[in-house]
């Protein structure tokens, strides 16, 4: 059986748009990439930013307390 290009596109979309929990898998990858390899700003200040590959879109906005605790605001959209 030979898949059509439409079949292949649909499978790729189904895999990467799978909701892993509240986010899609591709959104999670974008956010994790920002933490590990993205431009970061605000380190040493009250709010830290971890940027997308474009260097300007915040993937994580993190207001951290003195011990490092906090609830990040995340943005994984394309």
């Amino acid at each position, binding site marked *: 059986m030979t898949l059509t290009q439409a079949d292949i596109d649909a499978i790729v979309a189904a895999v990467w748009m799978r909701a892993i929990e*509240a986010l899609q898998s591709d959104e999670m990858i974008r956010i994790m990439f920002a933490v590990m390899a993205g431009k970061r700003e605000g380190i040493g200040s009250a709010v830290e930013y971890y940027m997308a590959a474009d260097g300007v879109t915040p993937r994580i906005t993190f207001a951290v307390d003195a*011990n490092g605790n906090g609830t990040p605001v995340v943005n994984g959209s394309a």
Partner: protein
Amino acid sequence: MSYGIGPYGVSGYGAKNDYAGGINQTSRLDNANTFYAGSVLAGAVALNQSQRFDGASQFYPATVTQGGALQSLTQSTRFDSANTLYLAAVSPGAIDINQSVRLDNGNQFYSSTITATGGLVQSTRFDNVGQFFAATVTTGVIAIQSPLVTNTSAFFAHTVSLISGPQSLAQSSRFDNSNTHYSATVSGAGGMTLTPEDISAVADAVWSHMIEGGFRADEMLRVMFSSLAGKREGFGTGTERYYDVSGTKPRVTFTPDSYGNGTPTVDGSL
């Protein structure tokens, strides 16, 4: 002109021509050369070794066996309920080949509509056939450039080329060892266009794949995400916790020693 053929004749060996006549209830018409515009009706059991049946209007409950070098069923319009048409070349104008049981070893079927055919075995070309319904096509079928191939049970080792316009291989169940399927839309059992359920099943298989330590791919992704971008609590205390996206379920619970060593407890489940 004919030799020895009456309306209810038993045999017609070596007959040459029958123009616009009826050949009804005749049991055998072996080695006839040409039938023009004739009707061969019920009871014509065998038409063996006859070379041409051009412009014949109907062949039904007939067995057609062509063995000569010049073989043609050109412009014949109907072959309803024929038992066997083999080593035949059916050219443009053969409109309906309905309910025929077997069309074995046919060389060419052009611009025909073939419905509810049991066997098209070893036939080499079915170009521009209008419809195939409930047919079994096996080894040797080279080219099919037909707009509809529906309810077909098996295509083995052939090239299927569906031409422009409405195209369907709907409900066809098998295309084993076929060389090429292009410009085709396939739905139903065994089709080439995947259903939403097929696609979802592929995604399930990808994300449920076991990566290591009893963790699935989606579980690992949840855990890693919590460590990198999840809510975190307990920093500055003995136990740190990293949470899921909702901020309520601990994904990683970690009680390190004074150097930072320890074994996290992880939970990647939904």
